[in-house]
């Protein structure tokens, strides 16, 4: 399988604190990589480096042949190919749901409005929110907003989709509706990098799971090995915090 995203020796520091320590990773087309780890382990920073929201101090991020460089002039061109959905509902509050979705394809990709609208409605229908197209974000629940955010990223036809703890701010009963959408995306062969705290979801969606701590990859493997036969003590202890016994 063709390699689509490559990270070579990525390092990042916030002042004196090392956040990412010589990280390397390669993601194949259609692969779903889930990144887990304790808070502050650098998971989110890692994702943010992948689309240039954070400065990269050492190492490089390659999307295909293209280098993702925060200081490069055409960074926004590269970003069109990397979709990202954030933890907080980040919809544009002054635009309707439909306008939220169609803004970037029309203004950035200069696509035809009628054609973009048609695609947007199809995608909204797919996530079960067609009836909300003329509502404003404030009229939607957190889970609905997050589904719209996913659609807004999808309509740019990204080569890679980055999901940064997209259910962390949601009420528990809304987590499912969002994760179901992500599962269906995985089934149709989307390349995704997912940071999450939902272990059951990680197990179901991932082709490969990575355990990140102190900016380093401690262990990685297929979901079966990773969750059922963890090799390192550190990962064993981490996974134990998610299971309860009386």
């Amino acid at each position: 399988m063709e390699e689509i995203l490559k990270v070579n020796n990525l390092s990042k520091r916030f002042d004196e604190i090392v956040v990412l320590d010589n990280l390397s990773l390669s993601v194949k087309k259609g692969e779903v990589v889930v990144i887990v780890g304790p808070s502050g382990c650098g998971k989110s920073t890692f994702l943010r480096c992948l689309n240039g929201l954070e400065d990269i101090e050492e190492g490089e991020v390659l999307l295909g042949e293209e280098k993702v460089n925060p200081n490069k002039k055409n960074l926004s061109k590269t970003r069109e190919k990397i979709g990202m959905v954030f933890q907080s509902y980040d919809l544009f509050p002054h635009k309707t749901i439909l306008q939220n979705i169609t803004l970037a394809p029309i203004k950035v990709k200069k696509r035809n409005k009628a054609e973009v609208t048609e695609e947007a409605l199809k995608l909204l229908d797919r996530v079960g929110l067609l009836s909300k197209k003329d509502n404003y974000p404030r009229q939607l629940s957190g889970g609905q907003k997050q589904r719209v955010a996913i659609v807004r990223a999808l309509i740019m036809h990204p080569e890679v989709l980055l999901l940064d703890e997209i259910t962390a701010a949601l009420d528990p009963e809304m987590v499912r509706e969002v994760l179901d959408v992500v599962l269906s995306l995985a089934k149709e062969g989307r390349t995704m990098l997912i940071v999450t705290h939902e272990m059951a979801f990680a197990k179901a969606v991932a082709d490969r799971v990575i355990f990140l701590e102190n900016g380093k990859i401690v262990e990685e493997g297929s979901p079966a090995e990773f969750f059922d036969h963890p090799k390192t003590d550190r990962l064993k202890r981490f996974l134990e915090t998610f299971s309860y016994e009386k």
Partner: protein
Amino acid sequence: MGFEVLLKGNNMLRLLGGLGVALYISLISVAISIFLGIILGALMTLKNPVINAVSRVYLEIVRIMPQMVLLFIVYFGATKILGINLSAEVSAVIVFSFWGTAEMSDLVRGALSGIDTIQYESSAALGMNTAQTYFHVIIPQIIRRLIPLSINLITRMIKTTSLVMMIGIVEVLKVGQQIIEANRKSSPNAAFGVFATIFLLYFLACYPISLLSKYLEKKWEN
């Protein structure tokens, strides 16, 4: 009740003319304040220590100093010391713009810093460049926050123009006083009628603006 004096000669017209002067001064000042306030407010978000120190002193001066004192300083004081000859109207516009710019800049700063960084980041993640982000995402949100607040400032400015009669500008309140003085013998109750009319005129000038602000606020409450 004293309303009859208004029907004498062209008294009502004079009163309206006076209101015109008040509105004229306030609208020019509002236009200047909005323009300069947006620039200063945007500068204040740059977190430059020098700009911040200067603007803090400026805002504090405006907050502490009664507008009337400012009017006197500019009209009576500055003209003497600097040897320049400012008309009362120009002095009034300077003082009101000085005040309005301070208030406006504070509103702009608040509106700008109230926009979450995630709005910039999610725009960037969608491939928008800086200009597109500001044009389609940030500025529309700022305008929605700003317009109701700045309309409120406009009505406050219109009200406060009643002070400019203290430096000899014949605006609506001054005209009213003149009418009362001139009819002291024939209509001793003129004060009530005239001032009640002035109240009504201010109300008619400000209420539609205030309604507009309420309407926009409701429309944009998302």
